[in-house]
């Protein structure tokens, strides 16, 4: 999975969550959208659902059980405590290889 495919996967998960009323519509959703940290569009509980759905979708797409480990994500650390969709997509692309 490359970065674009990972972004599409995240986008699909967000759309499903919006459609099922699990989260509110996110205006201007793009790679800069923050999903965890200051200014996040998701609250803590929504973020858990979001990550769970991403893991499920990853398994569906790759056929492998893959789990997100937040402290393994590059560019998401104590110096940069904001996780963006772009940062997450890069991580998913790496994880799926």
């Amino acid at each position, binding site marked *: 999975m490359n970065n674009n495919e990972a972004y599409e996967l995240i986008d699909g998960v967000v759309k499903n969550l919006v459609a099922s009323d*699990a989260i509110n519509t996110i205006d201007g959703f793009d790679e800069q959208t923050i999903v965890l940290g200051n200014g996040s569009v998701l609250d803590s509980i929504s973020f*858990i*659902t979001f990550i*769970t*759905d991403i893991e499920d979708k990853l*398994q569906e797409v790759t056929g492998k*059980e893959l789990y997100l480990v937040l402290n393994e994500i590059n560019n998401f650390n104590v110096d940069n405590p904001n996780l963006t969709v772009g940062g997450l997509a890069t991580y998913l692309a790496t994880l799926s290889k």
Partner: protein
Amino acid sequence: MVILITGTSKGLGRYLAEYYLKKTHTVIGCSLSANVIMHPSYHHTQLDLSNESNVRSWVNSVRKKFQTIDVLICNAAIVSSALFLTLTPGNLMESFLKTNVAGVFYILREVSKQMIKQKRGRIIAISSITTATHQEGTSVYSATKCAVNELIKILAKEVSSSNITCNVIAPGMMKTNASEELAKKLEWEKEMLQKQTIQRVILKEEVAHVSDFLISPRSSSITGQVIYLGLSN
């Protein structure tokens, strides 16, 4: 209901599994050893709860197969130590931490993800009154149970908005394989009973009664509690 119980091969876990099967619920169980419960509504997996990836895979497969987990009862624990802290080997302490704390943490994390998604759930952890009686010879065991109490109290706050309750049942002296083993080694069964307010062995039925109470729809506002059996607070 779909009820997931850990440590179902013996003792209290086995009792609770059979108790809820009799009540026509679906029970999903696990233990380090092979299945001992033969029932069409019982689904067993042989599992080491201290192995993070195994727990993830197991809960993932349960989620996919049953679509829901209504109740989690964290029962599995090791109770093999009966040593004063001064004599407790480091590797024994580490095995306690792995099973009684890390194992509970992994299962709580994975199951609560599903419960958050389904926006409801009941979580019960089995602890012990030794966290309050400070019984000699139980330092490591009691410390791990204190950790469980705290995990549950904090999780209760974190997931309350998803209609999930988290509580602890902390029984006094029970007749289970594990506690009998401990009692034999320390010869402190009598001493432990003397520390209880209700000075008799706590029955498994009494634990089931509290479990029923906590999973009842009418108990949706009871969360973050440690319910002692046999001990006044």
